[in-house]
């Protein structure tokens, strides 16, 4: 992006202005996420940088809010660290309880969404599919309908089916919300897919099952996996359906954060938020790697 030599001073000014503007937008995007990381190590229960923190005084930093995640709700939080401490934390700590719930629900949602979404995407991209556009819009409509409407409707409908206050109900609700992502990513992978490969496999004598296993599956796997990660992230981040459909027993991490922010915001939430940011960096990295793999396999190597 070197500037041509003949450019006028005005043009130069405009160019630097443009770069500064873009830089500020990037800062606007990323700063709010980064700012909570150091604050989560604040030894005082405040949400701003203390003078000591700015002077990098080590005593101003502590892990007390991370300890609170593990301890809050324990029967005997002052016990010395050991096996019984861990068991107590695993069974009784509130945040650990919600983390367990979040993972159980998100993993079940991911598996269900990947299954239903991949099948549907295979159908949508196969040559005989009638009314493809209409069906696609219907299948991804859960992404568009405001979550409050979906959750309110589910609250009415699920209570007649006995699904409110159960893990099954939440997994179903999250699968409804997560499957469209799998449909979209797998459809996108399949659209760049050369169908002659299937014909080649069949004409060389492979059974349709074998063709699926050794030709189609390896090619669409990155799409399925990134769709699955989207579904996982959707479930892991979802709170409105949880508010409407879950009891305390099914409380997830976002639900616990929601309660914390509404009632009394404590720095423990920042510690949890930092952990979630790390998790999202991990998920983002996996999705990026998968995307590049797909592009390489399609021959559009970047």
């Amino acid at each position: 992006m070197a500037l041509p030599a003949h450019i006028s001073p005005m043009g130069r000014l405009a160019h630097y202005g443009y770069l500064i503007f873009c830089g500020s937008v990037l800062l606007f995007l990323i700063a709010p996420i980064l700012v909570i990381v150091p604050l989560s190590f604040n030894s005082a229960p405040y949400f701003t940088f203390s003078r000591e923190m700015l002077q990098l005084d080590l005593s101003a930093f502590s892990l007390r809010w991370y300890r609170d995640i593990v301890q809050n709700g324990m029967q005997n939080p002052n016990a010395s660290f050991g096996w019984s401490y861990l068991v107590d934390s695993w069974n009784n700590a509130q945040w650990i309880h919600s983390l367990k719930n979040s993972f159980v629900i998100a993993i079940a949602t991911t598996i269900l969404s990947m299954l239903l979404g991949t099948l549907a995407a295979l159908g949508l991209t196969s040559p005989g599919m009638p009314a493809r556009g209409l069906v696609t819009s219907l299948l991804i409509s859960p992404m568009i309908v405001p979550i409050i409407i979906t959750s309110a409707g589910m609250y009415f409908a699920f209570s007649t089916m006995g699904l409110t206050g159960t893990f099954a109900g939440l997994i179903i609700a999250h699968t409804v919300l997560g499957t469209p992502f799998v449909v979209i990513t797998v459809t996108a992978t399949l659209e760049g897919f050369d169908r002659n490969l299937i014909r080649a496999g069949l004409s060389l004598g492979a059974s349709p099952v074998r063709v699926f296993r050794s030709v189609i599956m390896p090619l669409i796997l990155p799409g399925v996996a990134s769709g699955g990660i989207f579904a996982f992230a959707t479930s892991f981040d979802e709170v409105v359906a949880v508010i409407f459909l879950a009891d305390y027993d099914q409380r997830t991490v976002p639900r616990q954060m929601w309660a914390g922010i509404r009632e009394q915001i404590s720095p423990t939430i920042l510690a949890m938020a930092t952990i979630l940011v790390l998790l999202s960096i991990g998920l983002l990295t996996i999705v990026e790697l998968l995307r590049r793999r797909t592009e390489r396999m399609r021959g559009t190597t970047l």
Partner: protein
Amino acid sequence: MMSGMIADTRPHAGELDGVKRRRVLQQYRRSQRRDCLRALALVAPLCIFLLVMFGWPLVTMLTRAVSNDDFGAVLHRTSVALAEWDGTGTPSERVYADFAADLRQAHDEQTMGQVTSALNFEWTGARSLLMRTVRPLSTEPENGWKEKLIETAPDWGNPDLWVLIKRLTQPYTSRHFLAALDLEQAVDGSIQGVGPEKAIYVTLFLRTLWVSAAVAGLCLLLGYPLATLLARLPLKTSNLLMMLVLLPFWTSLLVRTTSWIVLLQDNGVINSMLVWLGLVSEGNRLSLIFNVTGTLIAMTHVLLPFMILPLYSVMKSIPPSYVRAALSLGASPITAFWRVYLPQTIPGVLAGTLMVFVLAVGYYITPALVGGQSGQLISNIIAYHMQQSLNWGLAGALGSLLLVGVLLVYWLFNRLTGGQGLRMG
């Protein structure tokens, strides 16, 4: 693509006689039908799942919005008796007697709640009125129920109340939809606006519209220049910078909302910095959060990636040679941008703007946490009626109106982007 393929392999009519030709065509049609059935079978599991677990809940909500629930069922004798009443003056003794019997039965079977809550939304003080009425029902009156009920509470002599009860005993009602539009049905059946102290929903719908439009506009303003930069930079750099766009996209919504609370609150990072820099005095800290400003800032941040991603993918496909050609032909940079570059990015602008708008219209979490009183949107009042006031009919009606609006924008989105707009990753 496929139909062209098959058409090529179809035999030419001239080479075959009639019988053979028909047979080949038949086989062709059969294989087509098989393809179609296989495709449908693959889509079917998800379709059925969504129909039951997503479509059915939406239908339930719509029926909530138009039904009078069990009001007529609990007061079934009254509703039969009231059918003959023409709506002028007080109803006959029979209506009062049936009403007393229905109430007594409802009290015994503990179904009074459905009557009380429905009536209470429409008639101020209905709860205490019914409680006062139920208590002396156990003893038979000397001069008939009509006199006794009016004696207990003069409201029962008011024909307006009976018009209301008659309306509530119908199985279907338009009152929730009317209420959602700040309208009500007067006693004579005409539709009129509610008093200014009760008219809140139209204001809320309008606020939701302008906040969503403002958020979409802000996202476009911030996102467009950044997307052009990302599309022009060498891929290595742009991939790196793209991570900065994608990380917020992947970060939990609650985390991002929490960050904004931390940043914007009175004792938060931004205010402390402004005070420290001497730009704002200690006593005049800016109130950036728990009002509509907070909603706007946080929602713009949350939805900005949804603007940048479609813009970027469209801009990436624009060959840079067009702008270069315009410049070498003597166009000023502004003309080249305005007449050559911008028109080519319109599909991305439309996709991004509509996507952000549609998502903003239904936002609930962010306004609830950072919006305070003035930053609440329509979703928040739906949640309020679902969870606190328990006026589910009204919540259903508000939700249905919101749903219709969102689906209209979605339809427009699909028309304008040819169904190709929703992409990610």
